[in-house]
């Protein structure tokens, strides 16, 4: 469905992605894990069109999308729930959701909005209870649900999630990840960026490990969970004692 080949993305003169290749098959949940600054968010921003790759190709459903503007990429069927949620705090839950369908024409909106709202309320029942509440007053977990729900309003075929566990209490992380795991049943494809490698590998089919803008490992989630380097570096098993001595 999504194929990236040797993508190089720069911030000014700083090369943040040094030739990253990865793919996501339809119906898969794929995780992108790695430390801070490894290039995970840059990869997502390169896919969603917020950054243009200077080299390499990105194809989605067989069509080249590298360097297209974000709105064209949303129309192509890719939607991103950004890091830190980026909600409109002064707007109600429902208005935030409507913003997710902002790119649709009025007639299209009329035809499907009610049904789509029902759909996301079905996924996150707590949002239905808070329809008129201002987004800024929601709890962290609820805000994250709203951010994901908003991304779903454009009916994406591929959902990009950037650090959905960031700043959340363990219980909220569990709720969010259970919901993401459920997307598989809805036929949705997910590319998930996470620092919480354990939670991500728990729901992913496959994963890629990034280090300083380079892909260093790939494999099934199960394989990577059993990989000692991954365990040390990202799953917090005596990383400092054993790894940094060398």
């Amino acid at each position, binding site marked *: 469905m999504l194929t990236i080949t040797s993508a190089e993305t720069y911030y000014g003169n700083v090369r943040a992605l040094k030739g990253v290749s990865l*793919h996501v098959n339809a119906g898969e949940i794929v995780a992108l894990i790695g430390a801070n600054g490894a290039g995970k968010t840059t990869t997502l921003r390169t896919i969603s069109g917020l950054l243009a790759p200077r080299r390499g190709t990105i194809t989605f459903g067989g069509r080249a999308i590298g360097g297209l503007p974000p709105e064209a990429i949303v129309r192509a069927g890719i939607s991103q729930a950004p890091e830190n949620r980026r909600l409109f705090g002064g707007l109600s839950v429902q208005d935030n959701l409507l913003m997710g369908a902002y790119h649709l024409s009025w007639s299209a909106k009329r035809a499907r909005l009610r049904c789509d709202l029902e759909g996301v309320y079905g996924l996150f029942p707590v949002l239905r209870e808070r329809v008129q509440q201002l987004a800024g007053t929601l709890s962290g977990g609820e805000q994250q649900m709203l951010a994901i729900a908003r991304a779903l309003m454009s009916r994406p075929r591929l959902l990009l999630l950037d650090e959905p566990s960031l700043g959340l209490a363990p219980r909220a992380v569990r709720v969010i990840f259970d919901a993401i795991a459920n997307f598989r049943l809805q036929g949705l494809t997910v590319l998930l960026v996470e620092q919480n490698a354990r939670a991500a590998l728990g729901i992913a089919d496959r994963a890629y490990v990034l280090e300083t803008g380079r*892909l260093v490992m790939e494999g099934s989630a199960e394989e990577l969970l059993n990989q*000692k380097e991954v365990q040390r570096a990202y799953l917090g098993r005596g990383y400092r004692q054993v790894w940094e001595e060398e």
Partner: protein
Amino acid sequence: MPIWNASIETKPRAELEQLQLERLQATLNRIWESVPFYRRRFEELGLMPEHIRSLEDVRLLPFTVKDDLRTGYPYDLFALPLREVVRIHASSGATGQPTVVGYTKNDLRNWGELVARVLSAGGATKDDVIQISFSYGLLTDAFGFHQGAEEIGASVIPVSAGAPEQQIKIMRDFRSTALIGTPTDALRIAEALEEHGIALSSLHLRWGMFGSAPWPEAVRARIETMLGISATDNYSISEVMGPGVSGECEENKDGLHINEDHFLCEVIDPESGEVLPAGRTGELVITTLTKEALPILRYRTRDVTSLNPEPCSCGRTLARMARVFSRTDDMLVVGGVKLFPSQIGEVLMQVEGVEPHYRVILEEVGGTERVEVQVEVSSALLTGDMRHLLKIQQELAQRLQRDLGLTADLKLVEPRTIGPIEQPAQRIVDRRRPEGGSRQGRE
């Protein structure tokens, strides 16, 4: 026969190549960080991992040769500390310093999976009772096949190397349905059966998988008839993994399906190092795509083969390599034409009515090279008329010229004047001055 991992083994070529590229790049990034030997090589070439942007770019990478592993004996090329390594094997060291290879837990898991694919392609199922006559020791064959057979769920009998009588006793008493070992093991067992007058019907043998030494089609035919089995070939090389690199499918026995999601294979001209297009015969070069303990770049196997990327009618899309019959050390240069003894055999075999017993005589007469190819004809043909024989002789000469660019005097000789020769290289009689051939320097 069922395909062990259909999602990989029947994957469309474009998807497979994307996976290969991702794995190649990840391997290069890990090697750059953790193998000083390769880091130095990269720096000498002014190469960074990210310069490899496509599979074609693999030709920018340096080769690895057996001597690199010997110089780095035992652990210099390992990418991980020994505490990550759960298994160590080594080559025999018969030709000098042995080469040492290591495996992590993931490497072993992959190894089992890859051998399971090769075994399934050869006809193995979980109901088989598999007798392994490879010697259990430092070499990779016995342990690799053992693990793959267990992965499939077959019953494995680790007989190890032993006298044919001992193998036969176990084969009969334990009701082995399959034999895995060297082609010589199979022949010895077959001969012992005959010698002791043991009927095939008292055995349960169904198939066999043989390797680790070249075995021409004539040997396969002998093994299949004498043991009443289907015999498949597979390719094993310890520096890269051991068995599990590639194997024939029982349906077609027409090339060995390479596990391309774990190994990137190229065929090169052994003299210039240039990559040859699909179908051309040359030296097999392998890059590992998933090995953790000992990733290896462009390993020069010195084995001679060609690649066929066309999907097979068995359903597998994995490219096939031709059976390996000779080593690059056997390469001949005749009048500027480079060729391998086995290629002559292949051409001869395509012409109907000619047994693949042949001999090639190289001479230098008055400063020019002369090639004589002697081909044994079947006794049936000798009773036929002369015109037919002449026609065959002409056709053979034309084929050698057309397919190999070899201008040779072709002589038909009577049956049993040459006889079966096990190794294609032994078919060459080089009477030229020493510098004429490139066959010196063999180990």
